């Protein structure tokens, strides 16, 4: 009997080990690529190595990172939120508009408005079972229209009136902008929420198998509404930060931000089909896109549009790799 048991056990162990490797690559692949890209960039561009440049990369990545954070939660539940790009712009305009009343309104008004849109998204998706793609596409169009109306077709630009809010956007601590510190805190909270709370587990469960989750007693609808509200809130916060940074509510940026966020999340190893993903991966995905942009700026004579070509290529490679890894795992 013992002789019989030995080969069985080793076979299982190797399959477990290969499982772990597959798992690790899927989760940390973006991080590995990021490290490689940073090393190459540091070797090739002397200016890239500077501490200042790191600060530049981080401050540029702060708003997209917030949007990608919300998107990570949404995608893990198996959904998608297309409205965040529009909400980001709307949030910026509203924040600049509200800044004449002071610091707190500049920060909270966009949160309230975008959070409300998130509630509408979430309720429609969770209770009427409409497709997230359609619901949030409608919200994208609606938020864009609202932004246009507020800015008189883009002809009016609201300047940030509150000095405190303006210096929050431009000031820095240890050479790193205040917004980056805020984003870092929000990310830590997000990580704890996703990986260490019951709510976080229910996010994974809903995305992994909605039917099973509901039979296991998970509050599926409440979970869905919550992730869309979070996504809206974070887009609003990103808009507010951007307004503080730029000193005005800019109406032309932000188109396609939702797609950049989805790209960053997927590059970070989160499955577009839901049920698996990490926030650490999303950070790596956001930074990867940011570093590529920065590198292209360093080269100087390459039009920045090529950044999108390269990001697109990365995305394609990652999705192919993910599909392959999932297949590999099924076989073992």
């Amino acid at each position: 009997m013992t002789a019989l048991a030995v080969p069985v056990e080793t076979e299982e162990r190797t399959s477990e080990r290969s499982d772990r490797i597959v798992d690790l690559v899927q989760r940390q692949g973006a991080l590995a690529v990021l490290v490689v890209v940073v090393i190459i960039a540091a070797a090739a561009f002397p200016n890239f190595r500077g501490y200042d440049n790191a600060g530049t990369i981080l401050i540029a990545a702060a708003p997209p990172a917030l949007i990608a954070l919300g998107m990570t939660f949404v995608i893990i539940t198996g959904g998608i939120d297309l409205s965040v790009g529009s909400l980001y712009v709307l949030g910026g305009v509203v924040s600049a508009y509200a800044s004449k009343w002071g610091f707190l309104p500049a920060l909270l008004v966009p949160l309230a408005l975008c959070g409300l849109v998130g509630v509408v998204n979430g309720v429609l998706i969770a209770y009427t079972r409409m497709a997230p793609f359609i619901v949030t596409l409608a919200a994208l169009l609606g938020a864009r229209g609202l932004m246009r109306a507020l800015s008189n077709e883009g002809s009016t630009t609201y300047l940030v009136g509150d000095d405190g809010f303006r210096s929050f956007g431009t000031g820095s601590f240890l050479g790193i902008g205040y917004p980056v510190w805020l984003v870092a805190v929000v990310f830590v909270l997000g990580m704890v929420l996703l990986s260490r709370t019951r709510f976080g587990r229910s996010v994974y469960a809903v995305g992994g198998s909605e039917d099973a989750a509901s039979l296991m007693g998970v509050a599926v609808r409440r979970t869905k509404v919550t992730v869309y509200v979070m996504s809206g809130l974070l887009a609003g916060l990103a808009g507010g930060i951007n307004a503080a940074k730029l000193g005005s509510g800019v109406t032309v940026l932000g188109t396609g931000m939702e797609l950049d966020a989805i790209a960053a999340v997927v590059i970070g190893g989160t499955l577009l089909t839901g049920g698996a993903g990490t926030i650490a991966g999303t950070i790596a995905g956001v930074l990867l896109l940011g570093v590529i942009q920065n590198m292209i700026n360093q080269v100087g004579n390459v039009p920045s549009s090529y950044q999108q070509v390269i990001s697109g290529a990365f995305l394609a490679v990652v999705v192919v790799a993910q599909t392959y890894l999932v297949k590999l795992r099924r076989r073992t």
Partner: protein
Amino acid sequence: MPILEVTDVSKVFPGVRALDGVSFALQPGEVHALVGENGAGKSTLIKLLTGVYQPDGGELRYRDEPARFATPMDAQRAGISTIYQEVNLVPLMSVAHNLFLGREPRNAFGLVDERRMIREASEILVRYGVTTDVRRPLGTMALGAQQMVALARAVMVDAKVVIMDEPTSSLEPREVETLFGVIRDLHARGIGIVYVSHRLDELYQICDAVTILRDGKVVHTGKLAELERIKLVSLMLGRDMSAVRREGFTGFAGDHTGAADAPPVLRVTGLSSRHRLHDISFAVRPGEVVGLGGLLGAGRSETIKAIGGAYPVDAGEIEVGGRTLKNPTPVRAVQAGIAVQPEDRKAEGIVAGLSIRENIALAVLPRMARWGLVSDRRIDKIVDTYMTRLRIKASGPDQRVGDLSGGNQQKVLLARLLATQPRVLLLDEPTRGIDVGAKAEVQALIDELAADGLGVVLVSSDAEELVEGADRVVVLRDGAVVGELTGTNVTTEALLETIAAAAVSSEEPHDN
């Protein structure tokens, strides 16, 4: 005093009265069998008990008080746990997270205590014979082990009632023993158990009481030991007892002589696949049903899939009608005349969201297309032919397959296979999860198809079905052929002996 009781409940769906004045009482510490054909109302009753549906009339009482469960969550909180027929856990999540989802141990900050959870999960699962790393994704484990996790999850809460819907359908015999051990333990602790199964042996082994449903009504309830087996079947089917006796438990008529000297329509020689299949050889003549016997994991499904081109093969030859099938792929296999009915009907067989017509047409499209176009009339004709021939019960060819009963779904799948005009039919568990009446019909169909000259390979975990349905049985173990039963030797006893003997002889070389 019953712990869970429904009195005179009804449930109406559009066009169907699923339950009609049903009363059912579960005593504490009782294992109560709930039996009936598919469509008799078992699932609906379970869903009423667990808060998935609300009754249209009648009363639900739990622990001697009127109760109303708005959601499965409510029922679970109240102490009613359910294990579903198909494992209802999240495959991408780890075993431990599945086990503890919604009730993870938390530390002083309200955060999930991962370490404690993993430790407790391991401790709990050892008692169910599951010893793998609980951090592994659940989906990487065998189906039986997943079912054990579902069982552990259902029982570990402070359950007063545990409802089990076909819990053994994906378990190996050893795991069934573990399950029965758990049931006996629950029984001793005074927990009420509702046990739904099609397997009569199991019912008589583990259950105290029985309630039989037919067409949404209770036709019998009482002590199981006092109910003769044949009486139970006749009550379930609404058929005369003597008819059941005469026709046996299965729908198979008997031997198909076939042409004993005819050249085989399928010949498999030395089929091997890394780790799973070792040098498998057998042949099927036209008009013959060859059974593949063995335990779960013996390589029966893999053999069938390999012949159908859906499982990687390292060596071996597959011949159909004397012609070698080179580099088998599903497309080439179908073209050669091989039709495979996969084990998992829902995942690999039917397309639940499409109509009967569309499901059947899927198979014939490639063959019937002229310059990429297919005539609707010709499809209608084929669909009509098979719906009549296979006696598919539906409102019409446009009904969604997902809305049909399991038996009719299986028939649609068979129709689709037959529409490719195969020479060999490979059936993997053709009657799993379908009710007794439909089972007999599918079995009779297999007979008819063989009589028409098809070569049939039959895989079944049901020994009776294998023995009564097959003319010869090839017995597998650990991916190799270990015996063959022919002629009068095709009996349940001989089958079990061969499997058991094989188990002994295959261990010997390791001991030496």
